[in-house]
């Protein structure tokens, strides 16, 4: 079960909503759908149930999405008004947290160190906040954790004070022990410009979450269904402590505020990932800090020194990957097969690695042929913590790596139907921006991505070579099948024979030679 805590309040994001991916009406509608879908996926992952997500976007003020008469304000250049509804079958939210979870920015369950799709506890609320400021309408929420009651709220956000305002609250009997969350609110946006990205987003999300049923009904009433191909959900990540290599002064200060440890030996052992008694001893000796010192008595100068020494000490164990939840080769393969229907797939999951104390795992896949269209360049699908990254492709580490590879070595040339997938999962994906659009060029990450792509590329090369061989053999056979009968015919004519000789045996022997790989 999620734990909740308040860390900060701000209408900062109201004033700076650009940095969270709400730059334009087009981006706003894309980001809203995306943030809420990701929250829903996280919520069902937490329960380890196969996700069931329903998304409906309709023209605001219309009961019936099938009705296509637009009632939108045409003078408004900021876009049309829409109503967005998202339903999931996730864990639900404990009733007392519902108002804050949806009405208070930077309140959430995602500040612990484990892998989750969202990172900032920001996205869903930004969508609601954006809806409120563009339409002045409240958000409606219904949620249950599977208990006997369903809680329904009507909320708006007091932006200045960063507090939810509860407009209405209802409790209904939960006869069917439903668990999940329903969010519905209005917002302005430009769906038709956003449509290609939204559909691409949903397709790639379905690919990387093959255990999810995702249904989307767009404002024109068009239904898009992405069906699951498995009910196997990857193991959920475990919460983990920060690794000494990954902490900063602020983190240490916060830990000191809450710690119950009264000496440094226990402090190190209790609050840091993979630090036991021996490591703790060794480190404190290295850092020349008294093991008996009370951590609450550390002066600011000493905290800075502690962090510096942590970075310098090279005998900390690397972080383990139990806090990560990669997709796994089997699910990755299933997802690709279902969404891309290729002729060939190779997948690879790299061993866990770490950068700056943050564990990460890279998964790669390559898909070839089948329904994949031929493109001048290799198509790249990028994922981080099981969410697709659709913007700023050129800056992404994976795209850079792919550009640097000499693809001729792998028999891949321009115009081939090739898709490469790169999935990076980490407790802290090294995004470069708050908008979570591309992964930075960290050397450790880059090297894992490179090795992962090489691994699958080698398998593709093998496949292509084998096919080339088969193709060559097929041609061989066709040459013999074409000419031997002619030789028989002309020889018969020359020899003034009546009946042509039987050359079936000869043709058969050619085939046999092929099977031997002659």
């Amino acid at each position, binding site marked *: 079960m999620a734990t909740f805590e308040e860390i900060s309040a701000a209408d900062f994001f109201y004033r700076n909503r650009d940095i969270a991916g709400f730059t334009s009406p087009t981006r706003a509608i894309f980001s809203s759908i995306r943030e809420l879908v990701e929250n829903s996926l996280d919520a069902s992952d937490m329960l380890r149930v196969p996700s069931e997500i329903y998304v409906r976007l309709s023209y605001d003020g219309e009961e019936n999405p099938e009705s296509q008469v637009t009632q939108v304000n045409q003078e408004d250049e900021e876009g049309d008004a829409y109503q967005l509804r998202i339903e999931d079958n996730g864990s639900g939210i404990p009733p007392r947290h519902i108002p804050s979870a949806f009405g208070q920015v930077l309140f959430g369950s995602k500040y612990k160190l484990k892998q989750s799709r969202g990172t900032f506890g920001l996205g869903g609320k930004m969508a609601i906040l954006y809806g409120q400021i563009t339409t002045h309408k409240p958000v409606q929420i219904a949620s249950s954790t599977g208990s006997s009651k369903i809680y329904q709220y009507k909320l708006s956000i007091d932006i200045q004070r960063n507090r939810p305002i509860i407009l209405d609250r209802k409790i209904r009997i939960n006869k069917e022990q439903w668990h999940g969350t329903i969010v519905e609110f209005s917002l302005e946006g430009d769906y038709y410009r956003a449509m290609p990205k939204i559909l691409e987003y949903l397709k790639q999300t379905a690919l990387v979450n093959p255990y999810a049923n995702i249904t989307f009904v767009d404002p024109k009433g068009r239904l898009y269904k992405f069906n699951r191909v498995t009910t196997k959900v990857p193991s959920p990540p475990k919460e983990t402590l920060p690794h000494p290599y990954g902490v900063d002064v602020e983190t240490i200060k916060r830990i000191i505020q809450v710690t119950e440890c009264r000496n440094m030996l226990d402090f190190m052992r209790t609050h840091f990932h993979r630090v036991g008694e021996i490591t703790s001893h060794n480190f404190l000796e290295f850092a020349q800090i008294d093991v008996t010192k009370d951590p609450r008595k550390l002066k600011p100068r000493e905290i800075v020194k502690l962090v510096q020494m942590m970075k310098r000490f090279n005998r900390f164990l690397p972080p383990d990957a139990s806090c990560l939840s990669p997709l796994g080769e089997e699910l990755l393969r299933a997802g690709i097969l279902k969404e891309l229907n290729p002729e060939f797939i190779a997948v690879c999951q790299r061993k866990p690695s770490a950068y700056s104390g943050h564990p990460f795992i890279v998964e790669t896949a390559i898909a070839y042929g089948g329904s994949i269209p031929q493109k001048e360049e290799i198509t790249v699908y990028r994922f981080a913590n099981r969410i697709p990254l659709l913007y700023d492709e050129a800056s992404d580490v994976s795209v850079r790596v792919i550009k640097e590879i000499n693809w001729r070595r792998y028999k891949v040339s321009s115009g081939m139907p090739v898709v490469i997938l790169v999935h990076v999962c980490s407790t802290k994906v090294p995004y470069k921006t708050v908008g979570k659009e591309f992964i930075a060029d960290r050397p450790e990450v880059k090297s894992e991505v490179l090795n992962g792509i090489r691994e699958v590329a080698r398998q593709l090369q093998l496949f292509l070579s084998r096919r080339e061989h088969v193709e060559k053999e097929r041609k*061989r056979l066709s*040459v013999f099948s074409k000419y031997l009968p*002619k030789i028989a015919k*002309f*020889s018969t*004519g*020359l*020899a003034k024979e009546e009946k042509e*000789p*039987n050359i079936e045996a000869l043709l058969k022997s050619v085939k046999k030679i092929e099977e031997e790989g002659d």
Partner: protein
Amino acid sequence: MKKKETETSVAGKRKEVLADLTDLGKKLYEQMSQGVFPWIKMPSRSIENIFYNPEIRQYVLGDKSVRRSARNIRHVKPFTQLVWAAYFADELSRNRKTSTLRDVYYSAQAYEVAFKDQPESNAIITDLETVIGYAREDFNVFPEERSAIFGDLTIEYTVPGYEGKQYNLMSHPDGVMIGPALTSAEFVKTTADIVIAIEKGGLFTRFIEEQVHKKYNALLILTAGQAPRATRQFIHRLNKELELPVYIFTDGDPWGMHIAMVIISGSANAAHLRDLTTPDAKWSGVWATDIVNYKLPSDELTQIDIKRLSELQKDPRYEGALWQKEIKQFMKIKKKAEQEAFSRYGLTYIVDEYLPAKLEETR
């Protein structure tokens, strides 16, 4: 390749060619009936297997042979083309039709054994010549180039529609074209004592006008430059069957010399064939020494001429004393002269003075 006796009867040769083609078909048919990939063996025509044979005074193929098998992926297509060419040749000969190399190239398309280009189909025809040991003219594939003959020789046609019809080759004052019909005709009678082959059309006409055929009892042949193979074969027959000595008159330069030499000893390209050469034929002029002795108007030899001369000097066909002497003389005087150069002494000088002198000299 079999060695063949000189065939005096055109009809006999035709029968032999047809029999050989049938044998080839039977052999392949037999192989396939026994469940073996059809194959053939033929002498290699690669440059290392071409030798000059001083005894018969022509190029011949050595002992190396190549085996072509339909079992080999690289051979199966040319093999098919070869079998088709044999089939096509058989059809031609049997139906007494003639064809050309160009024709062969297009005809293949009707049988779905298309050739990539003309050189490819030409090479297959040469393969067929090598396999059965007859020139393509013997299986009715004729060259485009035509040369001519004039003189008192009566022949009897064997081509369809003219069978048994006799014709005297003096009947037309421009000469008679040496085409498929003449090539396949039988010799009936002649009053000629010699054969004179002439490189150029102008001189050929002058010889007829000046009654050279009567004055010297000669058959006149126009080679029109390098003699076509049908013409070389025809000269060979005149020499063998009618036992007429052959004299060749060409321009006085390395190229003229070589026209004469190819009639005499053939070319390396035809090393797989016989009956195309006339080793006893004589090159009667124009020699380098003639340029000096007759004080002929002449041109400077070009670089290319000189290069050609030094190639010929090393060529085994040019080992004879006369050839070596003339090559040296050319190189010494660095001059060349055309047959027409004699006209500076008047139009009939060549016939009245030069010709009898040279015939006497090279007898």
